[in-house]
């Protein structure tokens, strides 16, 4: 295929990255590392879009721009999340996710 690298290779990488991100989300106890896991997830999605665009549908730039938008949104999300995390830190004096469970049941 393109430049000798099969499409599936990219997809395997991105899929693994996606699930590693999810694993991180599920297991890290620190809110910021959870946020980083999300970045991993979004990054893997970006790879997908880009690769599909390049390999399969190069006649348009849909995947490409999708990735761009995702990057921008990831930034926005991170901004708000970090703002809230700082707020949490002020309120809880900790950014341990386990401690943020005042509301339950």
């Amino acid at each position, binding site marked *: 295929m393109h430049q000798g690298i099969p499409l599936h290779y990219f997809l395997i990488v991105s899929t693994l990255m996606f699930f590693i991100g999810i694993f991180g989300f599920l297991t890290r106890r620190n809110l910021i590392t959870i946020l980083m896991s999300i970045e991993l997830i979004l990054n893997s999605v970006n790879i997908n879009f880009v690769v599909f665009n390049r390999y399969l549908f190069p006649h348009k730039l849909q*995947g490409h721009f999708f990735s761009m938008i995702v990057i921008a*949104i990831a930034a926005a999300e991170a901004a708000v999340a970090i703002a809230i995390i700082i*707020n949490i830190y002020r309120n*809880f004096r900790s950014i341990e996710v386990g401690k943020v469970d005042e509301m339950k049941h």
Partner: protein
Amino acid sequence: MNLSDLMIMRHELLLTLLAVSILIMDLGAGPKHRYLVLPVSLILFFVNLIIGFLPVREGTLFGGMYHTSGLIILMKNILNIGFFIVMLQSFTWLKKEENKLKMSEFYVLLLATLIGMNFMISSGDFLMFYLGLELATIPMAALAAYVHHQTRSAEAGIKLILISALSSGILLFGLSMIYGTTGSIFFNEVKAAYSSEPLQVLGFIFFFAGMGFKISLVPFHLWTADVYEGAPVGVTSYLSVISKGAAVFIFILVLYTVFTSIDFLWKDLTYIIAVLTMTIGNLFALRQKNLKRLLAFSSIAQAGFILLGIIAGSKLGMASVIYFILVYIFSNLGAFGVVAAIHDHTGKESMDDYNGLYHTNPRLSLLMMLSLFSLAGIPPVAGFFGKFFLFTSAASGGYYWLVFIAVLNATISLYYYLLVVKAMFINKNDHPIEPFSSDITTRLGLLICTAGIVALGFYNTVYELINKLSIGIN
């Protein structure tokens, strides 16, 4: 493309204009006049609401990324109505001393989410859809975390933003698969190329999960109650009604126009999720003592009912869903309006605090009862019609057992609604909530809700209009 074409985007443009003007007014007004920004924005939004009903051209813009139709405009107008009520209801709270420095920002953020929803509903491709979705979600997190001095508010904010990020990650992964297997992100092209290949199914399910988060379907619902409880009441009601309504709108639009070729699949999926959502939502709602939390779980159960309309896949189904959302906006905002009014005056939101409310605040109690009955689907209030039409549409697809499960769930839900009614009307209380009178805005909001709850069922024109505009899978 010329300027008149842009008028097709009137809803979004006006809202953006409104948001910007509020921002500018807020910046421009001196500290003495800042309190004027709120009423002015209210009035401006009301004007916008009215303008929304003026006829507008249907059409497609930006190469198919944006499109409107009578149906979509109707949905936007419905959201506008709800938005207006939320604005009215949060007025009292915003005027409080604690929010002095961030009054109008609240409206701006809310407006931003509404713009996002409008774009989302109007989207013609997954990119705009995703963008709208995020625009409708990210500022929400900021709104949920609006109250600084409350840990719960921050907690709600972080839970919302993180889970929403996760869900949008999963949704995006699904979208990437959809893109990869169909070669396009445009709805009409995706529709043409979609079949039930496993990878496409996988992509669809990831997409479904992402939407499930927005509509709070089980098992993607767990954030709901915590966020609803922690967020300010206005935000909660907004989340539970407008946000959810918009998500349902786009969800049903996408299902009915894009994934038509795998309708058998999403119908089965919806069946399972509907049963789970109704049942789990109700089971959790049963033992809630906090009104906001109770309404949160009830709104999960209501989402399950909404799926009953979606599953039909017919014009009837869509009409029922839209009608139900409209009714639901009035009913739920009525209930939240009462909760907000009481919270604003007393800070109380536990069911036990409501004991004997009827004797001190009869009108609020009556409205609360009406709203709850409407939520439960009891005649003659509008909720009855809404629910009945949903059941009808599910039955039209032959899903009689699903209808049965749903109606049984409606009965269970009646139980906890009645618990609230019981608290207000029957239970005795030595220290009931003192009689108080609310602001004119709160009253106006509640009045609109009451009118909606009472009249919507009998005023058949509304339903017929919706029905006329609705579409089904052909």
